[in-house]
């Protein structure tokens, strides 16, 4: 029995195709493993973020900040007189900032003026 050329071609093609198939299937497996790893990592990161957010909330808890501020800072609560409307503030600002400020007025925006005693009271 002799093999014809076409048979050889088919055999080569078959081998090539199965090699490709195996290669692809292993690649898929690897990628899937990768995905699973990444997802596990993502879940872990999400959990970490969650824990850190809670920690942040407890570190910035008002009761704690108040205690620390009383201990280390000499700040006073903001007085109502220290709060002026934007429009009033506009007159006191440099020209460029002034025009920017005027561009979005209309809303009764509050601006905090860090000007002790500037109120005249």
């Amino acid at each position: 029995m002799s093999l014809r050329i076409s048979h050889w071609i088919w055999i080569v093609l078959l081998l090539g195709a199965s090699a490709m198939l195996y290669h692809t299937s292993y690649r898929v497996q690897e990628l899937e493993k990768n995905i699973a790893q990444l997802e596990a990592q993502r879940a872990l990161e999400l959990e970490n973020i969650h824990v850190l957010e809670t920690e942040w909330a407890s570190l910035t808890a008002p009761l704690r900040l108040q205690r620390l501020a009383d201990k280390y800072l000499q700040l006073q609560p903001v007085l109502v007189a220290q709060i002026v409307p934007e429009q009033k503030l506009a007159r006191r600002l440099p020209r460029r900032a002034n025009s920017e400020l005027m561009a979005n007025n209309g809303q009764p925006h509050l601006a905090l003026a860090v000007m002790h005693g500037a109120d005249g009271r």
Partner: protein
Amino acid sequence: MNEWHTRPDPSAMRQMPLPGLLRPPKRRVLATPAEQALERARTRLVFFALLFILVFLVIGGRLTYLTLFNQPSAAESEADDAPAPSGMGRAQILDRNGVILASSLPTTSACANVKHLDNPAATAKAITTVLPELDAKKLADSFVKRKGCVPIKRHLTPKQYSALNALGFGAIEFSQDEQRSYPQGALLAHIIGTTDIDNIGTSGLEKKLDQRLRTATEPVRLTLDLRVQHILHRELEQAKEDFTAEGAAGVVMDVQTGAIIAMVSLPDFDPRDIGTADDKQRFNRATLGVYELGSTFKLFTAAQALEIGTTKMTDSINTVDPIHIGRHSIRDYHPEHRWLTLPEIIMVSSNIGAARVAEKIGGERQQQFLNQLGMFKPPPVELPEVGKPLVPENWGEVATMTIGFGHGIAAAPLQLVRGVATISNGGTLVNPTLLLDSAKTPPPEAPTIISRATTAKMRAMMRLVVAAGTAKAANIDGYLVGGKTGTAEKISNKHYDKNARLSSFIGVFPINAPRYVVFAMLDSPHGTKKTYGFATGGWVAAPLVGRVIAASAPLLGVPPLDSIGEAAADSQVLQPLGQNLINTLVKPHEPEQPAEEPEELPSATVSEDR
């Protein structure tokens, strides 16, 4: 030919042409058994070949279908992208700005598998070197007596976990667990509530919303503003200390939506050590405690009298002498001994006057009105700790008169806040709520209790109290506050005790266009040198509410008024009193000359860029 070849007629085989698989030779009589066998084999071969082709076709078809046509749908891939509900089971609780108020953290729990335990006593001893709070003997006993995995300790800290793991006992097994964490500590103890070791809500919102918190994937958002909550808490705590009060309570509520912005009850407790908190600390004075709130109730009497027209703004009422009725006598704290108009009764807080106004209304209508305001039912808020009001069984003439000035009926402070929000917002009944969702979608058919005209008169009278009456201490710069003080004697041994009071103030701001109502109450405060020994609502609660408003109004987005704007708004809100009353009661407003804007400014804050 080989010997083993036993086919009967090999020559016949050779003669037969090899048939193509699918092209059978022409039918003919199969003579020899050899030919029959060959035919059978051929048929089988064809059959199996067809079967294989069919199977391959099916597999090929399925593959083609899967690769080409079965793309994952958009919804599925989107669901894949959405953040997976993080392993934490119980949903977070956030304030209105997204600050975390309660959260679940992953922890580890340890148990000992008795099956693999060789020496219970030694193991128990080793465990106590890491967890000294456990008792070695009890632990060893439990290892002997119980079966399966005997719990050692739940919610281990990471340090404890690694130390326990390092002991190296194979019998100690660890499991993932979660623990509720309250980053804000005592600040919200009564609202958020607590959970037990199995993360089941035992009080507060944790209990009321237990089911939702367990199943929800989204955090639950509250109406609370943590910053305002802190301001209210700070001021109440300070006042409680200054006046050596037994307790205190406070509420800030949105007058339109009923959203509770802040709610505090003192003394409170740290939810992290609920075990050490006593009953007094756990008690929510704002919603569960019912109190005879006293003069603040006069607002309801006045509102109803004006609404149904039994008393008009200009009517004069006799408050010359105390009222004696049955065994009771109704007196004034600061007797005026003269005839007063309704605004004056509210301004000086005359019990006699309020009793007479209530008498004219009549018991039946009074009950109906207070019922409409929700005073006969526990406050409808999302907390399990709500107190049922105490109302007289026999609503006679005496009850009508005393309830007119807030005695003889006991309600939770939140009820009062709800009522005052209703009479100052234009007359629409509000439902107090802690959930941001419910606050955003007010019920479409909220009943209107009083008219806009009456609301305007009520605002004027509340402003009068702060501008010239018992609550001048709540008059602050920049914000127009209106309100009413209340000082009620507490009942001890069935008698009113002159030295144990509930001193409160309920304020509304800005009173010309109300946005928020602020309530503060001190339980059994004692006068100080600073207050000349007084411990009434006007001395202890009114200044407190003033400070709370001054500090929280800018945070709530209410812009302060300058002196000119304030004077204009003031005269507008006082208008319903009539010019005569304004002239005699409120010192004519002298609009201060608007202070000239200082031309020179601190150089640090402003620099011209040229």
